[in-house]
């Protein structure tokens, strides 16, 4: 009987069974950032512990970084305190740090792959729920809490309970104007925001096979929005090609050995899954959210759900709450909903290919004068590469602001925030109440090209119509 990649990695990384029955799992790679690590370092100090393998922890700063100017000291004293604390911790504990001056800073889930730190068959942990992004490389990558960050720092391991594996096949051919973001929004819409509980998601099928590494990252990124603890794609030639020559990728003989091992770690053809879901690519529409949970999503051509469409009292309540918060009318088309802000960026869709794809269509178009539009590269390297291709100019000429790298308006811990009940067409991953910095701010999640379409028309729009796809 064949094994899944998840099972192979889990077995090879199990150190011991703990007294409560959980597994002590070795973590190959630990990524940290300024928001969830300071308390963990504080706990280490309190307990008199050290970072046991500092060479396996990598730090960057992303959440609180302003994107208009990255010069320290930041105007926000709290943000400045946080970056100072990270500077102090990495120095004291001897951790590699891609800081603002390094030219390599960026969102932690963009930096890891970019540097070749993210590798197939490894376990990765980060105090950040979108760590599943790294699963695109066939890594088992977990978002963890701060106490677990402490555990990984102090022991290079953490306590975990095993999980089931659900294989999600997406087969067929995506329609023009439908992107990897639509695929994952569609999956979450079908399976629910809590549907992945207890599962690792293994994504596959011809669509995933055909996806670039960056498209696979977009899918894996939002595993957590579907309730799964992690998500991954089996490594293949594309994975190896992407990693070849990156700063932390194996070199020379070690490279050939690594590729052989990576090939072997992929799920066996006869692997047995706890659950299998099949999705037809042709059925995936350009998808947008309408509510305050990522599974409250519809096709851009649909109407917003009505209270009457609810399947239960609880469902009715959640529709009601979402409609009220979003100030949307049940039964009205989502298309045409006026937007105030357009945001392209985040660890979901802030990579070079995202900006390239949008730039292809944005040339010669203008952002509505009713809309504030910002484009935020996911890392300093994405920024440099985009500029090299002149993408920044295409964006700025169209009326977008081109910003410096960081999480920015994805969760607005920096100065990029919605104001009042502004509605944002966003390429990020969460539409929770207040997510984008204003307690009454509203978010509609969509693909980057759909954000661009909304920016141009000033309303939620079908990118296929706006750009004649």
């Amino acid at each position, binding site marked *: 009987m064949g094994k899944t990649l998840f099972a192979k990695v889990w077995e090879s990384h199990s150190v011991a069974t703990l007294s409560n029955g959980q597994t002590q799992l070795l973590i190959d790679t630990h990524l940290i950032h300024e928001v969830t690590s300071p308390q963990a370092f504080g706990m280490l100090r309190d307990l008199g512990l050290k970072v046991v393998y500092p060479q396996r922890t990598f730090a960057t700063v992303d959440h609180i970084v302003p994107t208009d100017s990255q010069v320290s000291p930041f105007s926000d004293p709290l943000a400045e*305190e946080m970056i100072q604390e990270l500077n102090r911790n990495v120095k004291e504990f001897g951790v590699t740090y891609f800081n603002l001056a390094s030219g390599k800073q960026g969102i932690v889930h963009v930096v890891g792959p970019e540097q070749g730190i993210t590798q197939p068959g490894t376990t990765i942990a980060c105090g950040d729920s979108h760590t599943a992004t790294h699963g695109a490389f066939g890594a088992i990558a977990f978002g963890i809490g701060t106490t677990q960050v402490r555990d990984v720092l102090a022991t290079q391991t953490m306590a975990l309970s095993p999980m089931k594996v659900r294989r999600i096949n997406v087969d067929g051919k995506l329609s023009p104007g439908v992107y990897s973001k639509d695929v994952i929004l569609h999956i979450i819409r079908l399976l629910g925001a809590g549907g992945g509980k207890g599962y690792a998601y293994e994504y596959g099928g011809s669509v995933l096979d055909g996806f670039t590494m960056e498209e696979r990252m977009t899918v894996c990124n939002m595993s957590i929005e579907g309730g799964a603890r992690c998500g991954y794609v089996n490594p293949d030639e594309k994975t190896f090609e992407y990693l070849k020559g990156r700063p932390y990728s194996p070199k020379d003989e070690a490279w050939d050995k690594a590729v052989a091992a990576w090939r072997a770690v992929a799920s066996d053809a006869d692997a047995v899954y706890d659950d299998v879901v099949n999705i037809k690519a042709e059925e995936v529409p350009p998808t947008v959210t309408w509510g305050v949970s990522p599974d409250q999503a519809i096709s851009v051509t649909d109407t917003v759900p009505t209270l009457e469409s609810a399947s239960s009292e609880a469902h009715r309540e959640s529709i009601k709450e979402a409609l009220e918060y979003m100030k949307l009318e049940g039964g009205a088309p989502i298309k045409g909903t006026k937007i105030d802000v357009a945001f392209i960026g985040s660890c979901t869709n802030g990579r070079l290919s995202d900006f390239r794809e949008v730039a292809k269509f944005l040339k010669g178009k203008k952002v509505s004068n009713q809309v504030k539009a910002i484009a935020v590269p996911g890392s300093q390297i994405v920024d440099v590469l985009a500029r090299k291709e002149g993408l920044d100019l295409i964006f700025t000429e169209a009326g977008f602001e081109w910003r410096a790298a960081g999480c920015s308006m994805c969760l607005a811990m920096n100065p990029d925030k919605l104001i009042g009940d502004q509605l944002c067409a966003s390429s990020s991953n969460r539409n929770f109440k*207040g997510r984008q*910095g204003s307690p009454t701010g509203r978010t509609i999640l969509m693909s980057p090209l759909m954000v661009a379409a909304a920016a141009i028309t000033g309303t939620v729009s079908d990118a296929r119509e706006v750009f004649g796809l």
Partner: protein
Amino acid sequence: MSLAKVTQVAGTAVHVPGSDIDTDRIIPARFMKCITFDSLGEFAFYDVRKNADGTDKPHPLNNPRFKGANILLSGTNFGCGSSREHAPQALYRFGFRAVIAESFAEIFFGNCTTLGIPCAVAEGRDIAVLANEIERNPALEVTIDLNAGKVFFEDQEFPISLPDTALDALTTGHWDPIVGLLNNKVAVDKKIRELGVI
């Protein structure tokens, strides 16, 4: 390091109804600009508790009748969203020592367990009964008994469940895993060499 055994949580309860209550709701991101968890309690559920001018909105946690409650009742998929431990830390510092809900998001559940906060799963109708009772009598003494797998109040009770691993960790005082993890240092070093990680 020896930890208290968490076998029972007794006190009063408050009901925050709703499903998919996410971690951004429990602690809005802007309050995460901090380097310790110490002051998070006052910001728990901030945006649903407070108006923009800082005055109170009607919310169960603002209701003086439920002041001091240490048990939180809620709906399905409680704690979904981010891995931020700031969420359970904020609840703990607000005064909560246990949560009873229909279901929990996994990372949130794990984070709570690691802090010694039991997250007990119960049937929606049982939670509704208890919510009704406390609405009538906020001073109602509620006891969560982890060993018995039950919640008791007055002459009533209902079953709760927790995964065995969490139950064991809490009731034996091993909810903070650091001691166990540190104990296996030799095996960890061996594994690291074996896998060629370093």
